């Protein structure tokens, strides 16, 4: 009897607390949906500062990467208007913008006396926020400026008299040379480590090679062209490089690649800036001070990294569009972005990349800025998730030895065409 009594109290108290918190009298508030990870954490801390400065209550919902997309999509479909500002990964943007889920920001800028966002934003980052790409209306602002970098072991390159790889052919010959020479000394070091697990992983590691070889996913009429001569040559090159990658790389994801690099068992890789920090951590890294980071190698075409920015946008169903816009402009200002950079996020503003304090702390910023400025987005189509999935399956099949490069690309092309026609 006593126990039920106790529970009744607990229930009464928690309900009254719930009522109290939900009925904050007339206080202005905005609601955010963010990624729970380093990117979202920086925004959470910024939101606390914002609350102190303005008195506007910022309510934050954090979700893991995959769930964030679902939550936002469900909110749009049901028109609940649950969020005033959302964080989104740039490949989601074409889908959200083309379905008119997002608020056009230009009128809101004009209301504040601006005709367009200031020119300090890196061009490639800002281009992601327009629909259609680069030319259309503005539906978001860039918050975190990730783009791929080329990682390599400076110490091994010096030891074997190699210079920084500029061309993909240098990468292949360097991988062979390092792996064979080190094996001669009794060390097992793989020349190159990549991830070819189906889906996002294989595609992200392949795109820079594909582009450098002159491959294009679509022609000017929007037809799939991954099985072009250039595309097949690029995949053949990837398979060559795979011979110097650890066994089983056809199922590798980011953590497997990270493990090989941190353990010092691989000499080169394509990776994202978030992996730079751990190399300096004595608890995890056996290669402290041995890594170097540069822009992606070139082929027939200049090297280009895949861009992967986090954007901030205002859902169309938001009931606090103006308050949301104030927050959005504040959070992407140079001053706030510097704080965000100190919290671990690469910026999207040139001035912040060039900030001397930040360069002293993050010596790779100049390389990151060069990579970002020359980076390229994943194709801007609302069906990217499906296309990437299908493409990744065939890339992984080729890398696991199930299909030849030609067969993989022909089948991928047919599958992508099928997805496009379903539109």
């Amino acid at each position, binding site marked *: 009897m006593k126990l039920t009594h106790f529970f009744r109290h607990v229930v009464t108290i928690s309900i009254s607390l719930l009522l109290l918190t939900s009925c904050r009298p007339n206080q202005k508030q905005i609601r955010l949906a963010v990624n729970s990870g380093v990117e979202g954490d920086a925004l959470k801390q910024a939101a606390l500062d914002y609350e102190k400065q303005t008195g506007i209550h910022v309510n934050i919902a954090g979700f893991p990467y*995959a769930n964030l997309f*679902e939550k936002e*999509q469900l909110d749009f479909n049901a028109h609940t208007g649950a969020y005033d500002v959302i964080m989104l990964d740039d490949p989601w943007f074409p889908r959200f913008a083309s379905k008119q889920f997002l608020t056009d920001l230009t009128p809101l800028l004009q209301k504040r006396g601006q005709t367009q966002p200031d020119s300090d934003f890196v061009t490639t980052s800002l281009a992601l926020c327009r629909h259609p790409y680069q030319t259309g209306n503005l539906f978001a602002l860039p918050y975190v400026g990730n783009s791929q970098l080329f990682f390599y072991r400076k110490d091994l390159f010096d030891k074997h008299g190699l210079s920084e790889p500029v061309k993909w052919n240098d990468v292949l010959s360097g991988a062979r040379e390092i792996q064979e020479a080190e094996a001669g000394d009794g060390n097992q070091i793989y020349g190159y480590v990549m991830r*070819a*697990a*189906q*889906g996002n992983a294989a595609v992200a590691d392949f795109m820079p090679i594909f582009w450098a070889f002159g491959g294009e996913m679509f022609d000017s009429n929007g037809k799939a062209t991954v099985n072009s001569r250039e595309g097949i040559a690029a995949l053949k090159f990837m398979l060559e490089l795979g011979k110097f990658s*650890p*066994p*089983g*790389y*056809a*199922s*590798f994801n980011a953590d497997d690649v990270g*493990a090989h690099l941190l353990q010092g*068992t691989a000499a080169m890789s394509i990776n994202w800036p978030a992996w730079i920090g751990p190399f300096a951590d004595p608890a995890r890294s056996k290669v402290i001070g041995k890594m170097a980071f540069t822009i992606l190698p070139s082929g027939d075409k200049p090297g280009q990294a895949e861009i992967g920015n986090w954007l901030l946008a205002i859902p169309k169903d938001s009931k606090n569009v103006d308050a949301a816009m104030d927050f959005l402009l504040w959070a992407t200002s140079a001053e706030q972005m510097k704080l965000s950079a100190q919290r671990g996020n690469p910026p999207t503003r040139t001035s912040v990349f060039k900030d001397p304090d930040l360069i002293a702390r993050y010596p790779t910023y100049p390389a990151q800025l060069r990579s970002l400025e020359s980076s390229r987005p994943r194709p801007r189509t609302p*069906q990217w*998730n*499906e296309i990437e*999935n*299908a493409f990744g*399956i*065939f890339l*992984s*099949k080729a*890398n*696991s*030895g*199930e*299909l030849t490069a030609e067969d993989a690309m022909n089948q991928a092309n047919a599958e992508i065409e099928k997805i496009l026609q*379903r539109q």
Partner: protein
Amino acid sequence: MIAPALAVLLSLSIYPLIYSVQISLQTDSPAGPVWGLGNFERLLMDHFFWDAMAHTLIYAVAALLVEFFLGFGLALLLNSSIRGRRFFRATLLIPMMLPTVVVGVVWRLMFNPNFGTINGVLRQLGVNTEQLTWTASPRLALAAVIAVDVWQWTPFVFLVLLAGLQAIPQEPYEAARVDGSSSWQTFRHVTLPLLKPAILIVLLLRTMDLLRVFDQIFILTEGGPGFATETVSLYIYRAAFRFTDFGYAAAMSFVLLIITNLISTVYIRLLQSRESVA
């Protein structure tokens, strides 16, 4: 008293079921949803779906056979009075009690071709492990995920069949002994018929579970390499939550449901036919 239960059932089960029928019959178009069998037509032509279905069936049949014979053998062994059977009975149940996600992560580490225990041990024994990339090999991946299922769920088959064996009264055995039947004859004509309900129930439960397998494969391979271990459940998940194509996902779920139902009906018929004889 029935009203609240009915309300819960209606809101949590009946309504979603009707809703999923509805969305499976709708496809998206620029002008809004269109009613029709579009999702089912697409499914017939989707070789990803049929590949996934083939993997699911291979997975289910292979795992079921191995789990059944292993589990049955263990149950017979530990039903007899061998030494240490209490200890074996207890330890055998451990895999089943572990969360599947934990099992998946542990096996993923063990299967790692470079750092994993399995290849480590094989190398110590002098085996060349270069080709043995397990979950990264299109030839071995499906067998590897089946092995993990066998490891985790054989104990369940064992447990149910052992309980069934213990429930058989002694009298028929005594009668068989008096009649001078051999141990094979006793097994064939006494144990097996009396154990039939337990066998059918365990086969039914395992089949239903195997046909909707998701979690350990998701952790172990996420369907890869390529498409080698993609099952229908994984493909449904992808369609729904990665491509937000809930209609297509619902249509595929119904096809899986129908197949599961057909197989279950066969089992249940067999079960009932036995009961009517007895």
